[in-house]
């Protein structure tokens, strides 16, 4: 329950913080941290325009997308405490849940019959396909380490015993940050601020969404960020700490993550489109490295 609240809260401000950081680095006048929220509220107040080409798919897709992300939130544990929904292998469900959201968004984009959205759609499809193994390998290495296969138990037992776990944490966090970047289609895979449709991924997919649907999509983006943020924080928080410490650390991590994203976006340049796949596959490679380290730590690979 706590995790749900925390995620929702941090989600509200996440994008705000990012923009703020970026503006600061670019030495621009910074918008209010609540600006994203205002935008969404404004969208909720608006009607909608649907393309005459579109069909039912286009109408239902944003809802499915949003719901999938929202439901995904339920799985995220917080410190020692399990998420609302928690069972063995829930992260598989988690991953596939996000996948179905993506699936719907992709076909919705194709539903508009617009060339631009087609581009966005197939890029999105390819990238999320490529990033999937990284996520699984990462979780697998943790599972291998803790001999548990649900988010909650994974992190609950993660730091018990040796501090070697931090070796894994750091590597995992590094990978996870980039996975988050890909999943939320930020730099260096995609530049949300670009104005050229030909180079967009996520933004171009939602060109035809408006009003309520667009708002949902925005919120979903925040939630996703928050989800990955809290996953990262779970890598750090020890379940043995008391609640306040945990919350403090959690929020700290979320803010730090947001800043990090902001900084990365400010200083990185977007990859060339056809460079993206190899860049993403690197993540899987890194994840494999994590897996191997875990093998060493669990002394399946014995070195001397």
């Amino acid at each position, binding site marked *: 329950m706590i995790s749900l609240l925390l995620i929702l809260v941090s989600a509200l401000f996440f994008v705000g913080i990012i923009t703020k950081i970026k503006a600061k680095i670019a030495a621009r006048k910074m918008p209010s941290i609540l600006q994203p929220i205002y935008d969404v509220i404004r969208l909720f107040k608006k*009607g909608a325009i649907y393309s005459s*080409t579109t069909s*039912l*798919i286009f109408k239902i897709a944003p809802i499915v997308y949003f719901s999938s992300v929202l439901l995904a939130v339920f799985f995220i544990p917080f410190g020692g405490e399990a998420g609302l929904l928690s069972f063995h292998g829930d992260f598989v469900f988690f*991953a*596939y849940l996000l996948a179905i959201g993506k699936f719907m968004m992709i076909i919705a984009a194709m539903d508009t019959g617009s060339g631009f959205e087609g581009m966005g759609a197939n890029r999105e499809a390819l990238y*999320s396909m490529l990033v*999937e193994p990284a996520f699984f390998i990462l979780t697998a290495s943790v599972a291998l380490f803790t001999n548990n296969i649900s988010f909650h138990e994974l992190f609950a037992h993660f730091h018990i015993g040796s501090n070697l776990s931090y070796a894994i944490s750091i590597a995992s966090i590094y990978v996870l940050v980039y996975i988050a970047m890909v999943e939320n289609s930020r730099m260096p895979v995609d530049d949300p601020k670009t104005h050229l449709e030909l180079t967009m991924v996520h933004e171009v997919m939602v060109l035809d969404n408006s009003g309520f649907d667009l708002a949902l999509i925005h919120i979903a983006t925040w939630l996703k960020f928050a989800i990955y943020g809290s996953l990262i924080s779970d890598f750090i928080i020890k379940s043995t700490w008391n609640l306040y410490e945990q919350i403090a650390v959690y929020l700290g991590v979320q803010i730090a993550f947001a800043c990090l994203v902001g900084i990365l976006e400010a200083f990185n340049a977007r990859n060339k489109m*056809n460079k993206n*796949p190899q860049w993403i596959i690197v993540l899987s490679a890194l994840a494999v490295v994590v897996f191997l380290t875990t093998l060493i730590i669990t002394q399946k690979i014995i070195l001397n």
Partner: protein
Amino acid sequence: MTIIILQIIIILTIVLFILPKQHQNNISLLLQLGIIGITSFWAIKAFTTSNILEFPFINLLGHSVSIKIDKLSAFFIFVINLTSLTGLIYAKGYLKPYLQKKNATEIAFHYFNFLWLHISMLLVVMIRDALAFLIVWEIMSLVSFFLVIFESEKKETVKIGLKYLIQMHIGVVFLMIAFIIACVQTGAAFSFDGLSIYFASHNPFPIFLLFFIGFGIKAGFIPLHSWLPHAHPAAPSHVSGVMSGVMIKMGIYGILRVLSYIHEDLFGIGVFILVISLVSGIIGVSLAIVQHDVKKLLAYHSIENIGIIGIGIGLGVIGLAENMPVLAVLGFGGGILHILNHSLFKSLLFYTAGSVYKQTHTRNIEQLGGLIKKMPKTALFFLLGALAISGLPPFNGFVSEFLIYSGMFKSLHAGSLLTDIVLLFSFSGLAIIGGLAIFCFTKVFSIVFLGTGRSDKTKNVTEVEPVMIIPDFIIGFFILLIGMGSFLIVQPLMNVVAIFTENASILSEMTSVLNKISLSSGIFILIIGIIWLLRAWQQKRHQVLENSTWGCGYTGANPALHQYTATSYADNFVQLSSKVTNVKKEFQEFDVDEIFPKERSFETHSSDVFEDNLVTKPTNETISFLEKIAVFQTGKIQDYLLYALVFVIVISLLTYFNLL
């Protein structure tokens, strides 16, 4: 008693030939229902009772061949019956246009073969005696061959059919050799049960390899798959549905059946199966992505799903070998469940694709588009199938893949280094397969059903008649049932898995998890519903407009012109996978001085590397060689007598040098 009824029904299939065209479907449906009734009754009995059902069926060479139904057979009986039934219902609508073209005998022959495909598949899973098994196995191949060449007016179809028949024959030869060697060396009874004696005393791998090749050709494991992508498109859709849905699973059945007799040194076998399956899965789906023919695409997906099933089984075997019960149980469980699941959504996909073909007369997706408005039911069912085959919750595909996943993750910690590495590859492979499947089905669904039509073929298309939708409803129901109520299938699944490992009870521990999954799915749908209502409420209070798609401000031309095509959608993947899919692009470069470009055509052709190098080239070369050396019938008496003289002399020489 029941057996006699079955025999009578089997004989009654002849009646089809004397019926007029219109009634044949109904009558065969009647016969089929009879078969289904009896066999399902047996299957249920087999499931409820602990021991194996056994009763004499026919005589062969004097000695009687009996039917044996254990839980594995029972499971397959259910799968076969369900899909065959839907197939026949679908056929009623699908074959309507052919009724004028073809004479009564041809139609009757088709239904006859369809029934016999059903019967032979049932017998395949019920008969243990090797000779009888080989016979029904070959009958299955034969009738399916006749079903494939239904549209025999096309020369191409017949050629494909022949290729199919030959490959099936090669398969049966492998099986025969395997059986003979196994039973000759031990002198055991010439049946599956005889194998156990052999495997107890010999290294199982060589014989298993023979069996695997024999059955793998049917199942369509890469590189034994080359018949599959051709036969399925050539066949009428209800046939492709049944063939891809259940017939190729007979190969899996065979492998499972053989495995159930092997108990020593399984690790190598497990890894072997796993590797082949991973290759099949990834290559299969990669090749699927680059196809333009929707049925060919689906055929390659069958290869992919066979791969997934194989991954499950392979992991199960490894689990047995390494004695990791969790891996064993969940691997087998997932694999076997996926057999059922694939039979469901693959037949659904083939039926819906068939409906599209029937209405548009093209299988080339580049010519389709926007059909969801014209045939909404078909479109939605295709979407359902697509979501299910991509293994997305809350549909059935997810459940089986989930079982396999959790099996792998559960055993990571316990496993040895080698096992862990194997597992690493397996789940990353599975993840990639899943992702690619999503990629592929987003492509095919949106190109066929979404956007706007890409050619005149999509104009004045209408929804198919209800009888062709009924099967979709039946299958859809089961897809959702397994997807949402996955806990229901645990018990039966446990019974089947118990054949391979004694601690199948581990599956029952999964029940709680599956409950949670169903719960989560429920919540998911609930949320969707709520938000839908919210939006409805919100949109009631604001105006909702309709306008053309945003075209960067340009609204002149029809959006279909700059709409994404299947080729362009697949392009960025093709760049990655060029090694496997080797897609050839045919187009003409722009000239330097060409200021106003003329109309241009752009085509891509993909070819199957394995098929080209392992099947097509070698066979063609052999055949041409044989043709070259066919010079014995010279027509000259002298030569004819010369043969005799040469023969005598050669034999004498051989004798003289004691070579004979």
